[in-house]
C-alpha cells in the first residue's frame, strides 16, 4: 500500500468521477430541443482549444456553434458550479453540525435569501438593466444576514455551541419563512415570479454569475479542504478534537463562513434548489467513506454531475415545457438515495 487509505481512494475516485462528469456535460450539451451528435459537440468544444482547435475543419452548420456557445454550455457550466457548491457546502455543514441530516439550508440561508428575494419582487424592482442584479444581490445578502444573526445568537454564551447554533438556525429560519409568506400574501401578480424563484432555475443569467460562483467555489473549497482533517476530528466531538491539537473554535468559524458564502452564492444564482446539498454528501459518504479529504472533492464532482443530469432531464422530459429543476432533483434523487441506502445497508456490510 502506498500512502494512507484516503489518498489511495482519492487517486482512484478523482479520475473516475471527473470522467463521468465530462460525459454528463457532453450529454447535457447534446440533449435539448435541437438534438446534437455527441461527437460533433466534442469537436466543437475542441475548436476553442489553442493547439488542437486549428487541426479541426468545421463541417457543421453555424447555428450549432451558436446553440452550444450561447445557450447550452453556459447552462451546464452553471449547473455544475451550483451543484458542486451546494454539495460541498452540505458536506461541510453535515460535518460541522455533526449531523448527517443537516444541509446547506439548515441554518436559514435559504429562507433568509427567499424572504429578501420576495421583498425585491413585491416592491417592484425593475427587471431590466441594473435591476436584474438587484434580486441575486438581495438574495445573497438576505442569506448571509440570516446566518450572521444566527451566529450572533449562538455565540452570545461566549463559545460557539453546535446545538445552540442548530436551534438558533431553526428559529430564525422559521421567522424568515414567516416573512416570506407575508410577502407572498402581499405579492399579487408577483406570486408566480416568487414561486419560480423558489423552485430554482438554472436559466443562464450572464457570465457575471458564473465568475462569482467560480470565485466562491474556489475560495470555499480551499478553506474546507484545508480544514478537512480538522473536520474529521470533529466527528468524535469538540473535546476530542481539541485533545488532538485542533483549534476547534477557529475551525468552526471558518467552516461556517465558507459554507455560508458558498450557499449564499448558489442560492443567489439559481434559487433554492433542494436535495443536492443533503443527498449528494450522504450518498458519497456511503460510497467513499467519511474522510473529508476524499469526501469533499468527491462531493463537489458528484454534486456538479447530479445537477447537470437533473437539469438536462428538466429541459427534455416534458419538452417543450421546462420543469423546475428543484422538482427533478427531488424526484430523481429520492429513489436513487433510497436505492443506495438499502443496497448498502443490507447485504454488503459484513
Amino acid at each position: 500500500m502506498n500512502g494512507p487509505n484516503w489518498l489511495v481512494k482519492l487517486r482512484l475516485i478523482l479520475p473516475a468521477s471527473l470522467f463521468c462528469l465530462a460525459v454528463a456535460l457532453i450529454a447535457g450539451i447534446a440533449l435539448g430541443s435541437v438534438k446534437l451528435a455527441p461527437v460533433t459537440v466534442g469537436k466543437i468544444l475542441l475548436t476553442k482549444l489553442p493547439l488542437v482547435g486549428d487541426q479541426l475543419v468545421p463541417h457543421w452548420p453555424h447555428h450549432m456553434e451558436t446553440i452550444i456557445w450561447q445557450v447550452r454550455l453556459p447552462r451546464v457550466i452553471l449547473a455544475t458550479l451550483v451543484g458542486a457548491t451546494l454539495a460541498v457546502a452540505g458536506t461541510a455543514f453535515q460535518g460541522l453540525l455533526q449531523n448527517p441530516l443537516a444541509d446547506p439550508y439548515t441554518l436559514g440561508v435559504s429562507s433568509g435569501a427567499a424572504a429578501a428575494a420576495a421583498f425585491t419582487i413585491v416592491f417592484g424592482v425593475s427587471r431590466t438593466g441594473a435591476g436584474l442584479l438587484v434580486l441575486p444581490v438581495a438574495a445573497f445578502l438576505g442569506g448571509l444576514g440570516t446566518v450572521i444573526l444566527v451566529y450572533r445568537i449562538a455565540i452570545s454564551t461566549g463559545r460557539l455551541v453546535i446545538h445552540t447554533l442548530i436551534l438558533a438556525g431553526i428559529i430564525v429560519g422559521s421567522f424568515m419563512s414567516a416573512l416570506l409568506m407575508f410577502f407572498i400574501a402581499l405579492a399579487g401578480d408577483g406570486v408566480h415570479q416568487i414561486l419560480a424563484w423558489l423552485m430554482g432555475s438554472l436559466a443562464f443569467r450572464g457570465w457575471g454569475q458564473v465568475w462569482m460562483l467560480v470565485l466562491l467555489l474556489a475560495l470555499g473549497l480551499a478553506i474546507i479542504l484545508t480544514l478537512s482533517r480538522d473536520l474529521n476530528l470533529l466527528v468524535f466531538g469538540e473535546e476530542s478534537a481539541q485533545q488532538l491539537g485542533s483549534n476547534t473554535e477557529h475551525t468552526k468559524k471558518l467552516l461556517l463562513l465558507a459554507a455560508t458564502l458558498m450557499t449564499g452564492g448558489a442560492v443567489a444564482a439559481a434559487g433554492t434548489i433542494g436535495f443536492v446539498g443533503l443527498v449528494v454528501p450522504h450518498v458519497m459518504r456511503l460510497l467513499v467513506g467519511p474522510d473529508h479529504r476524499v469526501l469533499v472533492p468527491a462531493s463537489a464532482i458528484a454534486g456538479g454531475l447530479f445537477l447537470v443530469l437533473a437539469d438536462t432531464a428538466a429541459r427534455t422530459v416534458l419538452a417543450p415545457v421546462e420543469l423546475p429543476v428543484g422538482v427533478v432533483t427531488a424526484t430523481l434523487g429520492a429513489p436513487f438515495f433510497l436505492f443506495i441506502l438499502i443496497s448498502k445497508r443490507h447485504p454488503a456490510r459484513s
Partner: protein
Amino acid sequence: MAVKFSVLGATFCYETFHVLEDISLTIPTGDFVGIIGPNGSGKSTLIKGLAATLAPRVGSILMDGQEFNKRSRRELAHHLAVVPQETTASFDFTVEEVVLMGRSPYLSGWQVESPEDLQAAAEAMRLTGTWDLRHRPVTHLSGGERQRVFIARALAQNTPVILLDEPTAHLDINHQVEVLNLLRRLNHQGVTVIIVFHDLNLAAQYCSQVILLHQGRVYACGSVEEIFTTDTIRTVYQTEVLVGHHPVTGVPQVTLLGKKTPPAEEQPRVHVIGGGGAAAPLLSRLVYLGYRVSAGVLNKGDTDWHLARLLGITMAEEDPFSPISKEAYRHNLSLIIKAGQVILPPIPFGSGNLLNLQVLVEAMGMGIKVSAVISSDIDLRDYTGGQAASLYNQLIENGMETFPDIQQLTFSLVPCTERSNY
C-alpha cells in the same frame, strides 16, 4: 523526581456550579496515578482539567512548570493524550482511520501521513489487539472494542503523558488486565499515566499514587497503603467494607460487606472486651450489623487486634504479650463510657488481662449495661486460680445479662436502624 503537573488551588465550574473546589496537588513525572472517588465527586472533571479541556475558574495548573494557556492546542497534543470515557460518532470511520487520527498533532494543513505515521498507528493497533478490527467501522464495535480503539489512538499520539477516564469500564477482565498491563509497561518506559478508576481493587493493584476525591475536594492523596484503609474508604463511599490484602500480590484489596454505612450519629455504639481471638466473630458480626464498634484492651499483633484494625475499629491497645497498663485500662474505660454498652465474649483470663474484667465492675457501678456470651464455662478459661471466676460471678450478681451465643445476644442490643437492609 521532576514534577509533571502542579495543581494550585484550582476550582472548576460548569456554568455556576462548582464541581471541584480548591484543588492542590502535584503529580511527579513517571508516576502511575489513580483518581478514585464516588460518583459525582469530580473525577472526570479533574481529568478534563489536567487535559486542558476545562480551564480552572480560580487557580492554575502547571505542566512541566508552565501554564497551559501559554501553549497551543497542537503543542499540548504533543504532550498529552486523552482516552475519553465514552465516545459517540455520527459517521462510520474505520478503526484504522480513527487510530491514524492520533497522528494529527504532527501533521500540518495539507500534509499527508508519512510511512512513519502509518507505522505508529499499526503498532498501536497491535499493542491494543485492535489490528484485526482495522477495517471495521467504529460505529459497529462493542463498547469494549471501541474503548481499545481509543486507547490505540492515544498510543499512536506517542505522548509522555496519557490521561484515561475509566478506560476499563466496558472491558472484560481479560481485556482490563491487558490494557492495564500495557499501560504499566508504558509507565515503566517513562510515560506518566493518570487514570480515573471505578474499580478500587484495580486501582490498588496498579497505582503508585492515589488521589481520593470526595464531594468536590481532595479527601486524601498518597500511596495505595496510605489511602486504602477501612476507615477512609468507608467514610468516603458510605459503605461497609473490609480492606484486606491481596493473597498473592499483597496490595490492599477492598471487600464489600454489602451494606450501606448509616451516618455516624445514627449508628448505635457498642464496646467489646477483647483478647486472643475469641472476640473476632463478634467484632465482624457487629460491624456487619451496622454498629459503631470500639474494643479493648487488645494486645497488638493478636488475632482480635488484626481484625479490629482491618475493620477500622477504635481500640485501646497494649504491647504484645504485656499485661494491661494503667493507661490502657483508662483508655478502655473511656471507650466503654462513650459506647454506653459493653459485650464480654467468652475470652480466657490470665494475670495479664484481669483488668479487662475489673473494668467491667467499675463500668457497671456507673450504670453501664454489660452483656456476656457464655458459650463456654468461666471455670474452663480461668487461668488466675479463681480470681477471674469470682470477679465474673460478682458481675452476674450485679446484673450482667448472659446469653448462650452471639445470635441471641445481638437480638437483645439496641436495635440498629439499618438492620432491615441485611
